[in-house]
């Protein structure tokens, strides 16, 4: 069985984000970048499935500019078998990523496509769901547990974190799974594995070769910081409180 994991290079979670003065985006120059934490969790789950004998190959993919290779090398050092870099300088939004993943899944034919539930830069939480729709594959999103049975071949059981609690779904393979925080604790890449990763292949491919045309269906108009927290106000009566909650804060 083959597992394909999609990983995204994002600003490291510990960095203090700053908005660019022209409000076109956030400052990324000289800022530490890392693999999206949810993507790390997805990769870890794929590696565990391979170690448990359910999969024979873990393929990792990433899309974007030249620095994607850093993220892919980290993924190979963690234990992925090979990598694909979809090379493009366009800014990518979830639907485009989903179309590229659809094309890759059609050619690579993985049994499971694992992704993080969302990226910590855009918090979109769309790509996994969209690619499942495009591929017409079943999906188990916000996975907090993934189980494969040696007996129940051809399916995977996913426990999901939903608004009301936990939901368990059984998916026929091939399927899309997106990972949530509590699924696992990703491993470190060891020093020897970092060195071994140099012998593993990173295949370069372009969107054109995949037959996908990149269209920007979204345009970022402005990026700005949330308003600074204002001082509190002491209200004189419950009526005044209700009035403020309704007419100023608009929460009731």
């Amino acid at each position, binding site marked *: 069985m083959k597992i394909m994991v999609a990983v995204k290079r994002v600003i490291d*979670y510990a960095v203090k984000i700053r908005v660019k003065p022209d409000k076109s985006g956030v400052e990324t120059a000289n800022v*530490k970048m890392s693999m999206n934490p949810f993507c790390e969790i997805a990769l870890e789950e794929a590696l565990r499935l391979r170690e448990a004998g359910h999969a024979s190959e873990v393929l990792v993919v990433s899309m974007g500019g030249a620095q994607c290779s*850093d993220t892919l090398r980290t993924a190979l050092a963690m234990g992925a078998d090979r990598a694909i870099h979809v090379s493009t300088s366009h800014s990518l939004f979830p639907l485009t990523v989903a179309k590229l993943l659809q094309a890759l899944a059609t050619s690579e034919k993985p049994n499971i496509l694992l992704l993080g539930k969302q990226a910590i830069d855009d918090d979109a939480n769309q790509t996994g769901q969209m690619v499942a729709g495009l591929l017409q594959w079943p999906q188990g999103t916000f996975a907090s547990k993934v189980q494969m049975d040696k007996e129940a071949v051809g399916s995977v059981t996913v426990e999901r974190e939903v608004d009301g609690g936990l939901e368990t779904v059984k998916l026929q393979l091939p399927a899309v799974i997106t990972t949530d925080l509590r699924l696992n*604790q990703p491993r470190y890449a060891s020093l020897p594995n970092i060195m071994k990763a140099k012998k593993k292949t990173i295949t370069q491919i372009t969107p054109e070769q995949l037959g996908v045309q990149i269209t920007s269906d979204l345009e970022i108009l402005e990026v700005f910081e949330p308003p600074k927290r204002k001082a509190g106000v002491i209200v004189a009566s419950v009526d005044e409180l209700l009035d403020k909650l309704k007419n100023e804060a608009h929460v009731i």
Partner: protein
Amino acid sequence: MSTARALRIFRRSDAGLLKRLHQGAAHRLFSSSESPSASASASTHTTINAAAANSKSRTWDEHRLSSDQLQFRDLASEFAQRELMPFAAEWDERKYFPVEVLRSAAKLGFGGVFCGHDVGGSQLTRADGVVIFEALAYGDVSATAFLTIHNMCAAIIENYGTEEQRQLLLPGLTSMEVLASYCLTEPSSGSDAASLQTTAHQEEGSTDYILNGEKAFISGGGVSDIYLVMARTGDPGPKGISCFFVEKDTQGLSFGRQEAKLGWRNQPTASVILENVRIPERNMIGREGQGFSIAMAALDGGRINIASCSIGGAQFCLDAAQEYVSSRKQFGKAIIDFQNTQFKLADMLTSVQASRSLVANAATALDSKSPWATASAAMAKRFATDACYNVCNDALQLHGGYGYLKDYTVERYVRDLRVHTILEGTNEIMRMVISRHMTKSQS
């Protein structure tokens, strides 16, 4: 407010949960009833913000590191921030030696950085080691320093041991199932190391060696499983010294009480006492009379490693100080807005950068076996340990009264770094090494 909206907001706090869950992965994997929990004081505030600041300071030398070294650094840095930094204060307070965390570091290849793949080592260069140890020391100087001493012992066996000795000792050492100590210093011979008095003599009719003597200030003393002992087999002076390995439970081997130290408190330090300790001939490492040059060659690497620890500690203190003075306000503005503070920080960073450059130079000199490697290591150790101690001390001063409190973490780095100017050859001895090299290369 709808439940759905409330829970979506809860999920946005995943980032905060991420930070807390990321702390102490290995700690959880190897937890025993004794291991301490993460300290939840103001020091946590300092460490997480310093981590964010450090992710900016990284760019200062990325241009000269290879892509492999950048990956090594990322790994070591992540490990330091998750497995060392949150617990270091408590380890220091309780004098707790975190063996299980060192073993999890060894699982990542940190236990035998310079040893061959065939014995579980990572087979990396000294230049790689510098990057790794600096990143680890950022999280905890003392634990990293122990790790470097253990690596120095493993490297002695790697470079001077027979194939049998390598296969016998290194698999255990690289995984840190077995810990090693370096025993050169004695109560009466520190700087004058070649005058050591521990003897190793053979009796009629046996090839065994009988060791008698006492070693002082031994890191790992009482806890380590293997002791590399420099003992006198021949004439006075350096040429009469040989190197042996002694196992912990050998009859006649005992230990003094654990020393109460200013810093390095999460490491055991004790005297090692040898009373008619009998070991077989095969426990000699290298040739008879080679012990002193083995010990000195090992210190070339050891000095580079200790200097790297100083640099990592200084970088942490510098980041913490910058963070503090950016938020502390006096006389109507943040302290960092005063030019004096800015100049001070600039000088501190320059010191750390200069140290880094000297140490990197010494590492590449040692890797290429150049004839000036020993002098380079001595210069790097002398400069970096002095300069970085001053940076930590200055960082404490920049914190004002808060710098004196354990909660603000910097004082522990000052205490830990204070010994680096003393051990592995005092900075005075470093000057002897450097000037000797200068006169030798003149004649």
